[in-house]
């Protein structure tokens, strides 16, 4: 049964914007096909990225006998189940990858499969290939789609039913979220990164702190970030409850985009459009929060939610017994005394070249006291890290240098942390069981993971970086 016809509002697009608008407003207006009486908008989707986990969406489409509406705007990526080490693929892993390949071939979708030189994690290769651009609406059946907002795009994760709807119609139904601006004033201290900014605000506002909001990150410390840093910041928006995170595009953004394979050939014309995307100076946000970047220390999580994070100089706080038990910690323990069993560097949060450079700066000429896995975010990042000599630094330190994929962030490919083992990890979720059943995850920046590897415990990276930055 379908809904009765409702009045559809004509959406003014040009010339009628006397009211100052936020970037969210501008992006929303530019994609709004129509708005129903009940306030729900039908939005045009410029890029739809699918992965192995999208099989439910394809199955729904096939069950209705429908075609993919816009195969040229749809891109497939093998990442969640991608094997990162040599050896036999497990049967279900093989099945998931084959299913995506079959769906892509049947529907005419360009697929970045395991053999593709552009293969990697969807939120790493979208930007790398120039599929991600300012001003676009980007959907993917993955909550970390907020990553692409770093370019000034409207990018958010969707579920399988929405994946099927986008495949069928190239549109998505959404209610406009409220707006929230998170401003980082000042300058980050050496050794403190975008990851620390993200864990910092989430620890202050809570995992539900931005629920129902689209977050725009702004301020001098955000403008000073590279595209990699901005992607890390936007990536973690969902861990604070926000489906969308974004940064206004600027010259840093335009320089990153220029010349990438799928990026516009007429770069100047596109930039002219993109320069108008940022929030108007007088635009009003529903909520505004300001942090001083200079006050942010290297931050680690101690619990089983990303909000349970503290500066590395802190102690394990009083908390729910079930959390402390799961994590194998006692209240009052200094975080720097917590021994780790292994480390992981990678993921859509922190698997980019800059992340690997920072980790390598810590590890160069040093040995890891614990085993660890380094999985670059893409085949291109992998090649670049090898060319720059970073891979050799990891190997010399005693860490394993692997192929690209989601790997130990989510463990779907079999890269798992064993029960009761403690992992210092550059990933995005310290949820119970996330890295493996009973696994104990501490989230932190790649530099901090490298410090934990060198010390065999949670450690402050700042002294280890002295003279190295």
């Amino acid at each position, binding site marked *: 049964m379908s809904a009765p016809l409702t009045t559809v509002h004509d959406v003014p697009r040009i010339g009628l914007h006397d009211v100052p608008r936020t970037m969210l407003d501008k992006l929303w207006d530019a994609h709004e096909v129509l708005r129903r009486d009940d306030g729900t908008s039908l939005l045009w989707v410029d890029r739809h990225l699918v992965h192995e986990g999208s099989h439910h969406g394809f199955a729904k489409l096939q069950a209705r006998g429908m075609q993919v509406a816009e195969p040229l705007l749809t891109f497939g990526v093998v990442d969640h189940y991608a094997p990162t080490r040599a050896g036999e693929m497990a049967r279900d892993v093989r099945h998931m990858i084959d299913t995506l390949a079959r769906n892509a071939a049947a529907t005419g979708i360009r697929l970045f499969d395991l053999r593709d030189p552009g293969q990697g994690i969807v939120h790493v290769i979208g930007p790398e290939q120039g599929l991600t651009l300012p001003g676009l609406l980007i959907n993917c059946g*993955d909550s970390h789609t907020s990553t692409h907002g770093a370019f000034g795009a409207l990018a958010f*994760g969707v*579920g399988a039913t929405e994946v*099927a709807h986008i495949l069928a119609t190239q549109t998505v139904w959404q209610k406009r979220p409220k707006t929230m601006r998170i401003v980082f004033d000042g300058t980050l201290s050496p050794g403190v990164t975008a990851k620390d900014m993200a864990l910092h605000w989430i620890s202050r506002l809570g995992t539900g702190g931005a629920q129902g909001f689209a977050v725009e990150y702004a301020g001098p410390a955000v403008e000073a970030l590279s595209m990699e840093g901005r992607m890390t910041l936007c990536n973690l928006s969902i861990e604070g409850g926000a489906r969308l995170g974004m940064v206004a595009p600027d010259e840093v953004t335009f320089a990153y985009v220029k010349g990438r394979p799928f990026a516009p*050939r007429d770069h100047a014309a596109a930039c002219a459009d993109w320069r108008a995307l940022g929030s108007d100076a007088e635009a009003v946000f529903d909520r505004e929060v300001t942090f001083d970047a200079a006050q942010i220390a290297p931050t680690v999580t101690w619990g089983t939610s990303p909000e349970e994070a503290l500066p590395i100089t802190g102690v394990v706080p009083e908390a729910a017994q079930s959390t402390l038990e799961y994590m194998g910690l006692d209240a009052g323990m200094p975080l720097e005394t917590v021994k780790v069993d292994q480390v992981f560097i990678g993921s859509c949060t922190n698997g980019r070249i800059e992340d690997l450079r920072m980790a390598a700066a810590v590890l160069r000429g040093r040995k890891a006291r614990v085993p660890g896995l380094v999985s670059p975010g893409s085949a291109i990042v992998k090649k670049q890290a090898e060319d720059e000599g970073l891979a050799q630094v990891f190997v010399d330190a005693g860490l394993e240098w692997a192929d690209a994929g989601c790997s130990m962030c989510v463990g779907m490919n079999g890269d798992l942390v064993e029960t009761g083992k403690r992992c210092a990890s550059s990933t995005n979720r310290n*949820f119970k069981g996330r890295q493996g059943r009973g696994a104990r995850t501490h989230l932190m920046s790649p530099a901090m993971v490298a410090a934990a590897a060198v010390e065999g415990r949670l450690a402050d990276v700042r002294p280890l970086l002295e003279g190295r930055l």
Partner: protein
Amino acid sequence: MSGWSQIKGRAVALDARNVDTDQLIPARFMSQPRDQGYGGFLLHDVRSDDAGHVLNRYAPQVLITRENFGSGSSREAAVYALVDFGIKAVFAPSFGDIFSSNAVNNGLLPARVTEAEIDALIDRLGDDDAAAFVDLGTGEAEIAGTKLQFSVDPVWQQKLINGWDDIDMTAQYAAQITEFRGKRLAAHPWAMPTTD
């Protein structure tokens, strides 16, 4: 999807905050086809570590829990696990955004009530189940003898009651979508991926 307007069944309490989708269904089960049923995967690791877990003893239609339920990953499989287990409504002070959309797309009600109401219900239910009545049309419920009002987005309320399907709903706007596409790509040619 068929609509519904009332639940007459049983409720249990899950006394936990931030029950994320990785807990609701661990990632290793997500390669399974849906037709096998996902109910057995619901909170799999918690339930298998605790034989006396409330969901191992009862088969409720209503779940009472704490804030930020369904946060984390966009996996719709978390909703499949709840729905296939027989759950039709979850009462909590807040929900993960993507989870809520996924829930409504599968006929599962994310009903918002205050923290104080949840505290009282969790106290009252303890480790046992109790009678539950939910009226989607009026936004009223009676759980373990306690009457309460819940809130749900009115669009979602209609969608749940009528069992509306978004793809069917969008079909009536096909002409507008085509027109919009043409205008957008003409005004912003850079929005089309470059192909050599």
